[in-house]
């Protein structure tokens, strides 16, 4: 017997409250920037 994962909810709606209301630390911002550049988003 196999279990097929359920289709997740539509991810189009962001959470009502950001989990980082105070923003990223400078190091985290730098990391996010690098990731977005590497993946071609910016």
């Amino acid at each position: 017997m196999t279990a097929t994962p359920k289709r997740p909810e539509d991810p189009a709606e962001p959470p009502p409250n950001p989990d980082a209301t105070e923003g990223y630390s400078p190091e985290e911002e730098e990391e996010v920037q690098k990731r977005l550049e590497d993946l071609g988003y910016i």
Partner: protein
Amino acid sequence: MRHVAVDIVTGFLGSGKTTLLSHVLAHGLKGKPVAVVMNEIGEVGIDGQVVTGLNYVEKMVELSSGCICCSIDEYRFDLAIQELIETVHPHLIIIESTGLADPEPLTYRVKAAGLKLDAVITVVDAANVERFVKETEVATAQIEAADFLVVNKFDLVATGDVARVERRLRKLNPRALQFRSVRGAIDSEVLFATGVATYRERAREARATSDHLHQDAFGSFLYRSDVELDQPAFEHVLERLPDDVIRAKGIVRLVGRDWHCLFNVTCGRVELGWLKLPEDRTENQAVFIGRNLDRHRAGILDALRGSERAQAQRQGEVR
């Protein structure tokens, strides 16, 4: 922080998935931090031994003794992903499924884990795919789920037969872009998420060298704007991009949203994600990659400007 893209490499038994992956990893992906999840049904992961040690692989995790789409539970899958993210902070994870996996449940699993699905890459054995499709449902499912179809081993098949195979594949999945390869050697950067950055860079350079785009099989152009976009109008544009647009990717501000929208279109499959960025970052940036873009560029940019105007009109109606 899970801003990690996932590319799934799938294909029926013996199609050449690991060979393709080895070739791609050995040739770089531009040195980006890449982690690999290998899934094998047997106890001993043979394919994993092939991939381990390649220059650009930060880490390889094997999920053996079960198929990733059905018999490996969510806990084990999440644990493997979590381990990868925490230990090597990859920007891209490549998951190679077993030859018997249905990629569709795996795509749900990837999204449920909070990761961004970039592309499903299905490798087919040109010499045997027609037989596999007749005899098994999963071979068909793998083809139907693909964003990119790599027709491997085409050198082993007569030219007319390759054309017939490609027509058959197109019938099963008209949306997917097809590539031919021999022993997994494929030189296209459009397949993997990290290749998009290269096209964005080329599009930037194209301002200075007007004929640059004509030199490659694929061209690219940029969209930049400081105006927030109307979400329904923007999604409408993405869903109706011409088939020649292979990929589109970027970050935009949408009206009424506190978070920035990360969007990714791969061969007509549209994904939206959300990211909290500093509020002073107001510029929309996007790159469009594909063929014959000289024909499509003006229309796409007009449609995007229309998304800006749609918002302005709605504001006017409210007033």
